[in-house]
């Protein structure tokens, strides 16, 4: 009874809370990092070194007037931000944060659940997130957000194909779809997969950037394009949900990349006995550090690269990313058969 | 099985009643889904993997048919500006 209901419930609550707090602080982190790259200081007034800035932002957004355009479709208008946020959050159900720990005399594995089609579940849930963007643009009942949302969703579904192909080559390497088994396979092969599949890593990273509408692929939401993109008509808490969903998506992509390529909770060189003194650091700290590195690279790329034009973006996705991903799958399959 | 039969009926009724051609296509998807449910149910009952393999093919065929069908609708719409199936009566225009 306790095992089947209480422990997963506690885990879900914990992960959800950690994610939401993480997402709100991502806002601050992004502004700080971009500011430092641009040789300025970022938010400094609210709290010491601007630490309380997200709370100020949250209060402001909650207190803002919640405008619904008159001819908009009310149910869809309300549902669209929720549809974007939910897939980002439920992906965390299958990501393994660490090996089993002993808590209160029970062996508790540090993931919410381990389904045997874990990786495919993540991809399918990500493809549901496209709906929120389309519906958000359409429900605003005005031309600019509609066109922007169509462009954004076209970008998302194009890069979905490339990312799925890259993940297929990872599945072939690991031999299983379940996330926990992938980490264990990296333990058995003595190397993180980033060294075995560097091409897939680069492809996944670029695809991840495009999937989350992050720079340099943030055509959909840039202020100079189409007057603000698909969330023009949203204000207050709904707008906040859209933004938080984007950051949550970023964290999801970073976590998935960590699990697939950087070995999840394994320490560097997991099988070398000489470094086993690093074993006292629990697995989930390694996981957090690696995810944080990824997030930092996301922000770094945003601060550094200029934005892609829409047709360049689509060309990159279809003509470059997908052929290389397919070639990667073929090469991986051949190597797997030969070895 | 009763469920899949009911879904099938609803899909067929939808194809017959609605004039909006996109809704007609969606009813066709409902029919295909009903068939899939039937296949999976049998596969579970008889513990044979065949049903699931066949269902995968049905999904693939449905995807192909949806893509081509929507392409036809778009091409038609550009010429005739209507999605009402009663007005799509001429074989050539």
């Amino acid at each position, binding site marked *: 009874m306790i095992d089947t209901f209480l422990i997963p419930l506690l885990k879900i609550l914990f992960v959800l809370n950690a994610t939401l707090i993480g997402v709100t602080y991502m806002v601050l982190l992004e502004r700080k990092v971009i500011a430092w790259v641009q040789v300025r200081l970022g938010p400094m007034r609210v709290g010491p070194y601007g630490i309380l800035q997200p709370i100020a932002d949250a209060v402001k957004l909650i207190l803002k007037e919640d405008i619904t355009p008159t001819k908009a479709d009310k149910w869809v208008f309300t549902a669209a931000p929720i549809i974007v946020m939910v897939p980002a959050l439920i992906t965390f159900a299958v990501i393994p944060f660490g090996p089993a720990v002993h808590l209160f005399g029970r062996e508790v594995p540090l993931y919410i659940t381990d389904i045997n089609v874990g990786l495919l579940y993540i991809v399918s849930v990500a493809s549901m997130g496209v709906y929120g963007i389309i519906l958000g643009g359409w429900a605003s009942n005005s031309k600019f957000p509609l066109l922007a949302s169509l462009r954004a969703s076209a970008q998302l579904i194009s890069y979905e194909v490339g990312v799925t192909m890259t993940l297929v080559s990872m599945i072939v390497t690991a031999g299983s779809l379940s996330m926990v088994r992938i980490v264990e396979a990296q333990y058995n092969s003595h190397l993180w997969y980033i060294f075995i599949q560097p091409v897939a890593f680069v492809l996944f990273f670029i695809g991840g950037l495009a999937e989350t509408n992050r720079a340099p692929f943030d055509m959909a939401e840039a202020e100079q394009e189409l007057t603000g993109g698909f969330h023009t008509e949203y204000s207050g808490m709904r707008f906040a949900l859209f933004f938080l969903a984007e950051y949550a998506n970023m964290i999801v992509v970073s976590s998935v990349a960590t699990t697939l390529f950087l070995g999840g909770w394994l320490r560097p060189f997991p099988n070398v006995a000489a470094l086993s003194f690093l074993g006292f650091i629990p697995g989930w700290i390694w996981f957090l550090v690696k995810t944080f590195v990824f997030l930092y690279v996301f922000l770094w790329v945003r601060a550094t690269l200029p934005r892609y034009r829409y047709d360049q973006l689509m060309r990159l996705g279809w003509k470059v990313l997908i052929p290389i991903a397919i070639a990667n799958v073929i090469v991986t399959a051949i190597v797997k058969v030969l070895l | 099985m009763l469920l899949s039969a009911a879904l099938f009926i*609803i899909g067929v009724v939808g194809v017959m009643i609605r004039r909006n051609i996109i809704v007609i296509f969606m009813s066709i998807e409902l029919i295909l889904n009903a068939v899939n*449910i039937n296949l999976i149910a049998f596969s579970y009952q008889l513990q044979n993997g065949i049903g*699931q393999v066949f269902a*995968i093919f049905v999904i693939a065929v*449905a*995807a192909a048919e949806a893509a081509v069908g929507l392409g036809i609708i*778009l091409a038609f*719409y550009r010429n005739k500006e209507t999605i009402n199936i009663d007005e799509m009566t001429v074989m050539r225009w």
Partner: protein
Amino acid sequence: MGEAIAFYVLAALILGFAVLVVSTRNTVHSVLYLVLNFLAVAALYVMLTAQFLAVIQVLVYAGGIVVLYLFVVMLVNLKRPPEDHSAPQRKSWVGAGLGLLVLGELGGIVAYGRLAPAVSPMQNTDLAINNVERVGMLLYTDYLIPFEVASILLLVAMVGAIILAKREL
């Protein structure tokens, strides 16, 4: 016991959403109900231990095909207001009546078949646990030729759809 409740709830959801798909006037709402229908069907597949197929259903059907439908609906709706349904009411009633008749017939057939002793469902052996591997093995060994044919079909459909949707050849 819990499984039976889950099944009836899911069945009610699936049928309810299907009826809504067919009967809503607003096309975009229709498409949304279709998505919810597919999600409920995917949940049903998970209950029937076809996990791979459930995920594929969400990924391909609900995540790809319905997005395509939504795109077309929006491109069509951009120029006109939502289509007003001008069908005479009696046609709809005739159709619904016929539908109920056929449903009654099928129900009679199924109930008649239940009188005969049925094969009891076997335990969930490999098919449930190693679902992906079993399906994959079947797909690549016994059913290789349909697999290749399906991929050629998809390629042809892709080329066809692109040509059909282009503005000028």
